[in-house]
């Protein structure tokens, strides 16, 4: 054996992701067909003349057969052409990319804060199982995750931005500011996301660590006479954090949902807000492209997590032998 099964597995996994993506794009495309009625009419309004509507329909290409429309839409996407926004009469991509970048920055700040906090909290709770620290971490995590983002967001704004004035009210740094300033502006909006995710990640890390602590192989290591710190580092953490990685990746799905609320609250021009506005404005090309981009982000995140898990786990990497 060797790298063979691993390579084959990864190839399969990537192929599956691509297939999912194609299906997703078809679904989005069809939904876009069913919902809008007549795009020309939607754009021009009820008082435009029929010929003007028809002309626009023709210009937009929506009077062609569906498969043809899908094909040109899909191939366009591959070339980076996401269509023209109904609302702004400009290429979708010129709005989407900056919005995506903004959101990724916000998500990154949230992740960078919550992953170490959650993992450390969970591992600590497991090591002090049944003790005060364990209870404190578990209860805090659980109660925080029940507070909706907009509630914690508003409380945070009032507290830190308005009362204490230590952090800016908006998430938007003055244009041309450096990365540190940008991060400073993003901390406040990231915190509600952190609060929600903390309990979840901590709980997973705790469960994984406890399972490892109770395992026979940790007993073996302890009874060998290894110092506790070594047992934990070498034998516990490695096995306990592996499943946590996958769990964290699946949370990107939640994160995107949370972004819509947060971006709206903090008036932050991210992809969540873009999609939200596109939906209210019936700007279908924008909406379709936005949803698809989120799908891609989600798939890439879970794919990366899977690969990481596989590479770190010899049982999966090398395949079983009887």
């Amino acid at each position, binding site marked *: 054996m060797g790298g063979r099964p691993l390579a084959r597995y990864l190839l399969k996994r990537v192929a599956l992701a691509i297939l999912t993506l194609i299906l997703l794009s078809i679904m989005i495309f069809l939904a876009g067909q069913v919902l809008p009625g007549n795009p020309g009419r939607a754009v021009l309004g009820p008082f435009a003349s029929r010929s003007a509507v028809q002309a626009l329909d023709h210009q937009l290409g929506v009077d062609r057969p569906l498969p043809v429309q899908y094909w040109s839409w899909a191939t366009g996407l591959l070339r980076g052409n996401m269509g023209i926004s109904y609302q702004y009469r400009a290429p979708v991509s010129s709005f989407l990319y900056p919005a995506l970048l903004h959101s990724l920055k916000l998500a990154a700040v949230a992740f960078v804060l919550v992953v170490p906090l959650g993992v450390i909290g969970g591992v600590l709770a497991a090591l002090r199982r049944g003790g005060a620290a364990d209870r404190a971490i578990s209860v805090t995590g659980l109660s925080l995750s029940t507070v909706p983002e907009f509630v914690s967001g508003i409380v945070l704004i009032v507290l830190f931005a308005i009362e204490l004035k230590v952090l800016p009210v908006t998430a938007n740094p003055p244009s041309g500011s450096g990365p540190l300033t940008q991060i400073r502006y993003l901390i406040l909006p990231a915190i509600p996301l952190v609060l929600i995710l903390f309990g979840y990640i901590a709980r997973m890390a705790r469960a994984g660590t406890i399972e490892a602590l109770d395992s026979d*192989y940790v007993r*073996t290591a*302890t009874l060998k006479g*290894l110092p506790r710190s070594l047992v934990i580092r070498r*034998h516990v953490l490695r096995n306990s954090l592996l499943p946590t990685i996958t769990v964290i990746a699946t949370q990107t799905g939640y994160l995107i949902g949370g972004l819509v609320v947060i971006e709206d609250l903090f008036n932050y021009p991210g992809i969540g807000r873009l999609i939200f506005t596109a939906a209210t404005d019936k700007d279908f090309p924008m909406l379709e492209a936005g949803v698809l981009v989120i799908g891609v982000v989600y798939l890439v995140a879970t794919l990366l997590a899977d690969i990481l898990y596989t590479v770190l786990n*010899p049982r999966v990497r090398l395949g079983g032998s009887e």
Partner: protein
Amino acid sequence: MSGAAPAPGAEAPALEVSHLDISYKVRGADRLAVRDVSFTIGRRDSFGLVGESGCGKSTTALAIPRYLARNGRVSAGTIRLDGEDVSRLGPEALRRLRARKVAMVYQEPGRALNPSIKVGRQVAEVFELAGVPRREAMERSGEALGRVQIPDPRRVMRSYPHQLSGGMLQRVVIAMALASQPSLLVLDEPTTALDATVEAEVLDLIASLRQELHTAILFISHNLAVIARMCDQVGVMYAGEIVEQGPAGELFGQPRHPYTVGLLRCVPARRHRKGVSRLDTIPGFLPAPGEVAAGCIFAPRCRLADQRCTVESPPMYQVSETRGSRCHYHQRAPDLPEADAATVSAGQEPDGPWTGSTTPLIAMRGVSKTFAVRNEKVRALSDIDLSLYPGETLGLVGESGSGKTTLAKVLVGLVAPDGGSALELEGRSLAPTALRRAQEQRRAMQIVFQNPDSALNRRHSVRHIIGRALTKLAGLSGRARQDRLLEIVRSVRMEERHLPLRPAQLSGGLKQRVAIARAFAGSPRVLVCDEPTSALDVSVQAAILNLLADLQGREGVTYLFISHDLGVVRYLSDRIAVLYLGRLMEHGPAETVFAGPHHPYTEALLSAVPSLDGQAGERIRLGGEIPSPANPPSGCVFHTRCPRRLASGLCESTEPPLTEVEPGHAVRCHIPLPELRRLQGKDGRAAELQGAEGR
């Protein structure tokens, strides 16, 4: 209390346990799991703890290196290792004690090693801990693995645990345990999860290492024969107490406690045959954990118990210089009356050996099964020709992976055989899967598995489970169904009070009875039993075996009985079939197959069984691992491990046919029967063994 007490002035014993109490906190209350346990293991001695599951063996063992479960605690007594009181050690001293003085090996070798670290690194840790530099630690690990007779230590060191077999892993764990040259090695059921052939090898290994390394051993097992083979001194545990103690030979030869007597009688021995003699059982159940009894804890199950026993708790009587028994009437223990002696073979004519009907009830011809596993073809069964005759028991034996369960599933239609396989029931052909068989045919064949938990629906009551089977299989309803239900329940020796209970509320033995009752609901012609007693304690096993024998005597059912325990198979079977890598190696009447001359593989299986009398005679050992069925060896598939392999090269090149060597007895081997007889006879054996070991 123990005969192994040190002479004055000698060094301290390896282990000295005195008046040990251990309790577990369960829902706020302390439950005593180990009570007043005392024993001593002298340096280089071996002490065995034996008893049925839940009697406190593991709890005692784990208390020694202070690794009790989080809710467990030593509530009284002391444990001294090399004279040092374990309970007084601070964290660092405790760590040093674990590193140097005591090592443990336990049941599941597959779980004892870290799944994400290479085996070599894990062994090397022990040396690094003693201050050996990393490079040298790896070298020493290689040597340590060599010492436990691992054929290719370099390869094993580079492997992850999941890439190795159970026997190999247990060797690694033993190598690791012995690397620090501890003064005490604790082995908790080290071979219970292994095949008998592998078990025999591992036991040999432990015995020979003991000679070499001068380590004292605490050996824990539920298997009396294994303990008899491995230990000088024995303690028999029951419900948290050591009830009898003494030198192994004396104790097993002349037990002086009713529990020991009962245990010994439960094990099917050579003289036992179904229909001729019943197995003795121990009635009743282990007391619930934490239950405090006024008198003797064994009284509710003891057939010698009287008034005194229920009020006065027996002390450990000194029966002789070397022996102790916690029984007021230890002199009378050997005369313990048999359980339900009245029913011994009552109503059953001891029909002697199976007389041989000539028309088979079930005929299998050319049955093969190939599984596709990750683009590989795994031949689990290869061209099996086998018949079952009405009213007989066919015992199916072979190591794990030999195809026993697959054959069972093919027979009842849970797995479809490859095309070209022919199955017949009473001359009518059977469709490959149960779904396509006639209702009548499906009803005629039932199966009972090893693990009743997975076979019984957890949400339903016993009444519902059996009742449903009666409706479905026997088409009964109303009054008739109710009557038959009670009849079946009684025939498996359960009571009406069990009917409303769910499986979770029943013990393992009772669950298996429910599974058997359900199987009998449709009055089957054939019952396939796949390791039905392997997960049960010997006393429960004895009761189930009696039950199966009774049911067969009364209803004339045919059994296909699978077990890795040859004693059990021998008790119940009229004929035996031996499988290896999916091939039938031998089949014939039970007496003939057991008496020999037998196929070399059968010979090895038989010689792997540890026997209670301790004199298994010369042993044949199977070297090497069981080959993968995906890639079976050329010629005779057994040639890679066969101790009798021919020098001519015939075995490697040509697969021998399954040949009828005597009426009803077929063997698949190039060596002709008279030659096998000579080789396996007393005179030929010693010389041959030398040759086998030289390989």
